[in-house]
């Protein structure tokens, strides 16, 4: 079974995770149109990257978040904008007014997480990535490590360092939305 060849398998995967992906995006952008685009882009990237997913080796969600992170990264957004111009699946065109309202509500609900993310902006990229997935997206350390393609012990060390840094700097409460460490 391959996600990118079997529409039924893909549909099952999509239904399992579309909510998590919408949340993931809503935690990171505040523009509902962009959020719709990124959601579509993430699932397109899932199709593109389906060959890197080995069922049973690491959790599905970890793999998906690894893909999602890349899509949402600033560097990718630029490329995606160009790709959209050539007319692949464009998320924002699939939204009607009701969807727009719902998307705004989602984004609003994640406001606290977005400010927590902003508080992490100063951290070194490697540390921030781990903390983000654990504290914000509620992955386990093992899943975060898998999503980032790093070893668990590395993830643990980075997480520890990141928390320590934030502690000494500002300690925004949201960062302690206790990730399962």
């Amino acid at each position, binding site marked *: 079974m391959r996600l990118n060849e079997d529409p039924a398998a893909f549909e099952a995967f999509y239904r399992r995770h579309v909510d998590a992906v919408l949340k993931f995006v809503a935690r990171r952008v505040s523009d509902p149109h962009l959020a719709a685009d990124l959601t579509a882009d993430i699932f397109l990237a899932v199709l593109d990257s389906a060959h890197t997913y080995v069922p049973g080796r690491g959790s599905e969600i970890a793999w998906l978040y690894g893909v999602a992170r890349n*899509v949402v990264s600033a560097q990718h957004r630029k490329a995606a904008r160009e790709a959209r111009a050539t007319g692949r699946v464009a998320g924002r065109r699939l939204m009607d007014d009701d969807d727009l309202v719902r998307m705004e509500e989602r984004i609003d609900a994640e406001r606290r997480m977005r400010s927590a993310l902003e508080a992490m902006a100063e951290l070194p990229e490697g540390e921030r990535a781990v903390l983000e997935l654990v504290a914000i997206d509620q992955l386990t350390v093992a899943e975060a490590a898998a999503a980032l393609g790093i070893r668990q012990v590395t993830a643990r060390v980075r997480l520890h360092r990141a928390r320590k840094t934030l502690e000494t700097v500002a300690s925004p409460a949201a960062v302690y939305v206790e990730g399962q460490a």
Partner: protein
Amino acid sequence: MSNFEERLLSALKEEITTRTAEDRMTTTVTPDQRGSRRRRFVGLSAAAAGVAAAATAAVVVLNGVAGAPAYAVTKSTDGSVSVQINAFTDPEGLEAELADAGVKAVVDYLPEGQICKSPRGQQGSASGKFSTSLTKEANGISFKIEEGQVPAGETLVLAVSKSKDGDDKAPFAMSLEIVKGAVADCEVTAVPQPPADGRGGDGAPESGLDSKTDGEDTGPSLNQQTQ
């Protein structure tokens, strides 16, 4: 019920169907350099203008089944030759029609899952500007050969792995190349499995995210004309 999530799902499933069909159409084209060839095919199909209006000669060969023409070879005033294949029967007849239109061709139709081992000879000189466009019709295929694309001494080599559902059904796979000089006989081989997605690559999720190049690849889809 229709909302963003459902509409997105439909759009994505459509994308899967498109990509799968596209992979089938291009996957067997010179497997050793699939990447570049694939791009060429896909990129140029965007320019597929269809059969030129000013056709001077049209040859239609009737296939016994239901009276539908098995194939049509049309030479336009601009020198291009349009080929439409509705049923994968009578390869020799198609070769003859193509020869009449000035294109030397070797055509092989094989059962589903089988294809000729590629390449069949030295690559044609026009490879750099190979602009044969390929359109997947409802069931058959059509393509257009621009003037000079298959010059004297070169041969258009077409191999089709037919559908097990019938000669007039959408083919399982096909390969199209232009060979300079002698063309090797068809050495039957299994249609290579698309390596996951025809792109290869492995490793961490990051490395899998090659959607930038994919974006270009899948942009003007080969199958846009199909439903």
